[in-house]
């Protein structure tokens, strides 16, 4: 998956327009990245990429780039 595809996936997950979303977009800038959003993201990583992420790792993600880094680290992102 390319970074562009990953950003589209992330935008769709959180109900955002893909345009304007970048690795630097912070969690604070995404209203739907709330407590339910955290669980939604965990479930999507699990179901889409087969990545089981623990609570501590999820809490450490504060911007979109952190999610991309996780995907990259596990070989899911080119």
């Amino acid at each position: 998956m390319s970074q562009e595809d990953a950003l589209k996936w992330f935008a769709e997950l959180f109900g955002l327009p893909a345009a304007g979303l970048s690795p630097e977009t912070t969690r604070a800038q995404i209203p739907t990245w709330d407590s339910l959003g955290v669980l939604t993201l965990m479930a999507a990583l699990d179901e889409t990429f087969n990545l089981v992420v623990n609570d501590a790792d999820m809490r450490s993600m504060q911007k979109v780039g952190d999610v991309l880094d996780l995907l990259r680290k596990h070989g899911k992102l080119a």
Partner: protein
Amino acid sequence: MRFILVDEILEMQPGRTVLGSKFISPDEDYFRDHFPGFPVVPGVLLTEMMAQTAGKCLDAENPARGKSMLARITTASFRDWVRPGQTALIYGEVRTSRPQFATAVCRIDVGNRTVCSAELFFSFILMDTVAPGYRAEVLERFLAKSLPNPAATGPSP
């Protein structure tokens, strides 16, 4: 008004599949308004039936995880009316079950027809969040019926 929308668990593999039932009594108070002359079970109650049934399947899997709570209705479709006097058979299949969340696909059949279906997302709350005397009556009844009686199956003296 009680809010137990599953009469009985008929079958269950904890954390995997569940089948529950609910008789739709003509005496339900909501039929007075939904709708006069055309009583049908509201879709939100059908959704809650599916959530309660699947939730019991999750609660039975790992009680230490806490109590399952419906966090999101990912999808829901309603294909036919459910009328007074009918019995709803409520099916749930857990798709993902993790310490923090779970997902399930559910449906309700009336007769041989599927009347609604949903994909549901659950989170969990600690058991000490609810009142100390809280008991999941329907689940307890099923477990008491289905689990072997230790006195009957234990080793002979």
